[in-house]
């Protein structure tokens, strides 16, 4: 099955340590420094939105140059092959893929950007002079640190992020079924003196 990263929103404090770890890891590996996950703040929920590494990945299906491929670990983008067409970003149902590029204005701290559009412009339409963009998406850090596992999961100070793979999902399902069974028993008006194992 596909392995992906899930979040427990009640643990998320919106601090962005996941973004920092993602950016640092990829940048040091020579990949785009743009974080692969995004923090989303709704009135009642704060959560990092991550790629689900879908079984039937639409991003992979629509890529016209086969720059997106499935490896044993994840659905990954070949940044060199990507032509920045943004089709993958349009079809992603989670908003988990978007274009990014490295600005030449940022070299050696002499940044002087010349914005051409308001910041509110959709990232799919935004461009900046001389910057070639390519798609960035979560690779579970498998392209540069397969042993270490996803850096965001490791870095999260409240342990709000989890790797969901066949084992952990199976366990989670069992826990949910147990909880449902207990709730059912309570609903039926039965009480129990049994302590939790």
């Amino acid at each position, binding site marked *: 099955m596909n392995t992906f990263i899930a979040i427990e*929103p*009640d*643990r*998320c*404090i*919106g*601090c*962005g*340590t996941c*973004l*920092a*770890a993602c*950016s*640092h890891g990829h*940048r040091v590996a020579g990949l785009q*420094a743009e*974080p692969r996950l995004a923090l989303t*703040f*709704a*009135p*009642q*929920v*704060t959560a990092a939105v991550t790629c689900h590494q879908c079984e039937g990945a639409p991003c992979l299906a629509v890529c016209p140059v086969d720059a997106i491929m499935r490896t044993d670990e994840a659905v990954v983008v070949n940044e060199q092959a990507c032509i920045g067409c943004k089709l993958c970003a349009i079809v992603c149902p989670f908003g988990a893929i978007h274009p990014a590029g490295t600005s030449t204005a940022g070299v*050696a*701290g002499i*940044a*002087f*950007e*010349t*914005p*051409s*559009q*308001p*910041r*509110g412009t959709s990232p799919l339409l935004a461009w900046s002079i001389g910057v070639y963009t390519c798609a960035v998406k979560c690779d579970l850090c498998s392209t540069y640190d397969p042993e270490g596992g996803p850096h965001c999961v490791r*870095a999260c*100070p*409240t342990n709000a992020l989890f790797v969901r793979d066949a084992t952990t999902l199976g366990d989670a399902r069992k826990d949910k079924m147990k909880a449902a069974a207990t709730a059912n028993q309570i609903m039926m008006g039965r009480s129990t003196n049994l302590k939790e194992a």
Partner: protein
Amino acid sequence: MEKHMAVCPYCGAGCKLNLLVDDGMVIGAEGIDGVTNEGELCLKGLSGFDFINDTKILTPRILHPMIRREKGGELERVTWDEALDFTAQRLTEIKEKYGPDAIMLTGSSRGPGNEANFVMQKFTRACIGTNNIDNCARTCHGPSVIGLMDTVGSGAMSVSIPNLENADLIMLFGYNPSASHPIVARRIVKAKEKGAKIIVVDPRSIETARIADLYIQIKNGCNLAFMNAFANVIVSENMHDKAFIDAHTNGFDAWWETIKNYTPESVAEVCGCDPDDIRKAARMYATAPNSVIGWGMGVTQQRQGVKVVHTIAAIACVANQIGRDNAGLAPVRGQNNVQGSCDMGMWPSLLPGYQKVENPEMRAKFEKAWGLPAGALPAEPGFKLTDLPHGVKEGKIRAFYNFGEDPLQTEPDSADMKETLENLDLLISQDIFMTQTTALADVVFPGTSWGEHDGVFSASDRTFQRFTAAVPPKGECKHDWQIFQELSTRMGYPMHYEDTEEIWNEVRELCPNFYGATYEKMAGTGHAQWPVPTLECPGTPTLYKNGQFNTADKKAILMAHDFVEPTELPDDAYPLVLCTVREVGHYSCRSMTGNCKVLSMLADEPGYVHINPADAEARNIRDEDLVWVSSRRGKVITRACLDERINKGAVYMTYQWWIGKCNDLTMHVTDPLSGTPEDKYSACEVHSIDDQVWAERHMQALYSALKDRLAAEAAPQNVAPAAEASAE
């Protein structure tokens, strides 16, 4: 690759980490098992290391001493000898002409550590002969230090950060740990998972509000009214602990005379909340087995900051929610070593170890230890940091020695502060970066950075921990304490320390509460939480056990005050309340984090003004638009974030931005009891900008111009001094 143990330099949590060094460059950081962080780090700890390498992303590091021979002239790189001689001569002239009290100094609560600060205050008191030394606590938790010393005796957290997770109830009042101290927020998440009840009282629905059992959205500026009513409920509903009050407090009857007038109904309008919610909160707090109140700048940067701290302390006492491991007071400190600055006597009325300058016995002890004649140490408390603007205007302060702070960024009303700094006869800035303040200095001393020196920090919960150098000093940077001792020696009071341990041992000898905190005890991930009076004592995580307060008769003093509205209320011209808050990924004036690759990429100029969608719509402002924010003090460009989590009628700006600079808008009005500015409340208006592309380019142009100006100010350091060149 080498690993060097350090303590994170970014907030008061005191997280232990290793700096990873390769080929003389710091290339990473990893959490280690410190008492507070248990191996975890937030984004600043994890990614906030590369400023040491002089990345020049925001502003260059200062690597050589420079002076401005004439006021308004160009900076010129000189040898250390010349820079120190020049400074010693100028300071001596000012001291002779206007007296020692014409010189004001500020300590650094950031990277330098306790030893450097101790030597600086020794230089101030023993060599210059003034108590004009303060630190940035004045702008942040000063009211907590003062308010707690007035009531319970010690100006610090009474509980430890690790014990927060075992409390039965945590109430956060004007404190957003997720942004200020993610590693403390982590303890609150854990407390919740262990079954603690959480109450959040704040105008913003902060992250913790989402997991709170009770969230009360209050209006800005109503703190004292709310807390008085909260106290009123505890006593009216008979939830106070009469035996504890009788045995361990003074002044209950007088306290109640004021508090009894504040029924929840009487404050409902001022607070903008349901009176029953106040009752519910008070019941939860008073009846839980162990409750902690945590507060932050939402309490202290207000007109009545000290008075609210008095009331919070009184509430904890009357409800007997103090003096136990999981019950007490938690004013969590902002800067990594702001507790340390206060510990080291960077305070106009306190010698190191909270020993009052007004006490002749204390002065005599220090005079003896420092080889001074009897009566040499000044007895009068000195100026506060916030006295600087009027002190200079009135001609009382002539010279200012700025150590590792950037008042032009962090103090209110920047235009007024700039005039203040320009009107000084002598401005000395000892820093690691060319900040906006350093760019105005007549003398620029390059100190070593965190990561280049050893020392001890005090975490927010009174925990002393050691940090070590990872890389050698860059350029001609000297350790801060070396600079002070060389200057002091030139000015007639010789000091000759060999290393930080020698300094620390002097601190231990002079401060009974710190005596047991030896370097040996603090080796590795070791720590010592004061009071730690003996070598055997492992430290004291909890203050006031068994109701023993640190006052003269061991009893807490209950103090109550009447509520007064904030100074500058919104009106037709400026209808919105401006409240300044913190950026989670940046720190203080941003000179450090702004020079880190990851942190500067995740959040950069001009920052955001958070505005309720209803207020934005009324002004035709869309999310991510650049906007003008104006007040009676100034006007800045920033970016709008439409935020449903904040109250209508108020906007929030983080104080880290140099272009979107909220301190161009705030006003220099202070709480008279502490001198702390009312940063959480002033009036402003937000205006839309029609041409967004122009606005984006204008903002970039302002930002580039600022960076260029600072780089140009630092550039003379690249030219070796003529004298040295000819000697070679």
